[in-house]
């Protein structure tokens, strides 16, 4: 098995905390996102490099934020919520390219 494709959850946790703490130092505790809608390639097509995606839908960051905020007071989290977190982190990254 290719070791490049393996990552421990601990490693992800560590690097996430590290990056978020750097972000907090640089941008403060609250970040406002400028964008809202984003294009999304369907899960079925996302990892098929030989085919051009056809099913493109539109996600909404405000909705993703609302959904993951709900999880703070509920135990209804599902794996899908990692995806929401990912698109929010991606938006922060894109909108704050030079933060640190």
């Amino acid at each position, binding site marked *: 098995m290719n070791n490049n494709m393996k990552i421990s959850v601990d490693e992800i946790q560590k690097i996430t905390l590290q990056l978020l703490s750097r972000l907090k130092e640089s941008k403060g505790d609250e970040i406002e996102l400028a964008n*809202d809608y984003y294009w999304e390639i369907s899960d079925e097509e996302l990892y098929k490099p030989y085919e051009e995606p056809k099913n493109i839908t539109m996600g909404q960051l405000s909705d993703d934020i609302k959904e993951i905020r709900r999880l703070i007071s509920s135990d209804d989290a599902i794996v899908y919520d990692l995806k929401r977190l990912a698109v929010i982190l991606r938006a922060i990254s894109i909108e704050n390219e030079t933060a640190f």
Partner: protein
Amino acid sequence: MAEQNLPGEYENPYKFNAKELDTETELYYYGARYYNPRLSVWYGVDPLAVYNPIMETEFYGDGQHNGGVYFWGNLNPYIYTYQNPINFVDPNGKQSYFQSRLDSQGKRSMTFINSYESDNQKLNSTQVVAVFGKDNKFLKYEIGQTAVAAVQQEFGRHYNKPHLDTPSAGEAIGYVAEKAWESNEVRPVLLAPIEAAGIGTLVGFLKMATTVRLGTNLTKSQLKSISSLENQIYTHQAKLDEYIKNPMKFDNKGFLKNAPNDEVKQKIIQSRINHLKQEIKTFQNNIKKIRNE
């Protein structure tokens, strides 16, 4: 509580408390008795008020069933759930059997048990029944298939009428199911804060409890995932409908408002609708995968 259907709506005979509404008499059939929703009284007395050792195992005259004749609520055999339909339920037309206890936080809760005490009695398809063994230990809940359908129907009804604030039978059933899952040993069921839990959650729990009844091989964690996914389906379905009704309400940054032309605007809206539909489909597929279907 007589229910009115809108023209074109599916006419489900199981309405208030998932009981069948007799259209001729406009009374609800509860198995043991008919219930008049307008006058909130029973037709026919509570069977437990009449001594009948062959048909019934309890008799108020002997002080049985919630204190029997020594409890005011049993002295009027026509009243419904001791005039307190929020805390008590009456699944079969006999009096509700309840127990009051303090929980770990010192909060008092009412628990209900109906008159079923063994497996011997046949489950009515509209009922949720708590089954207790001879040692008085909670054994299981049994949920009739029509009860499941009734909850789904209730969900649909609430969904179309979000301002309907009366806790419904569907919600109550869901809550029973939730508690059935949470607790295997105590007599559960606090029916009071029914509104606090979303109907989606309740339907999810109900399905989960039904699955438990059917003797599934799924682990508790898998059942929890299914329940969470079902919640997601219901909340997303609601979100989708809200979005279709008024996409501008969700236009937080004014991208729709400032779209260069209507065609672009419509494209965004349609893509957003497709996205929400896709999310629902993903959740449904995930449930199927967990269930190995």
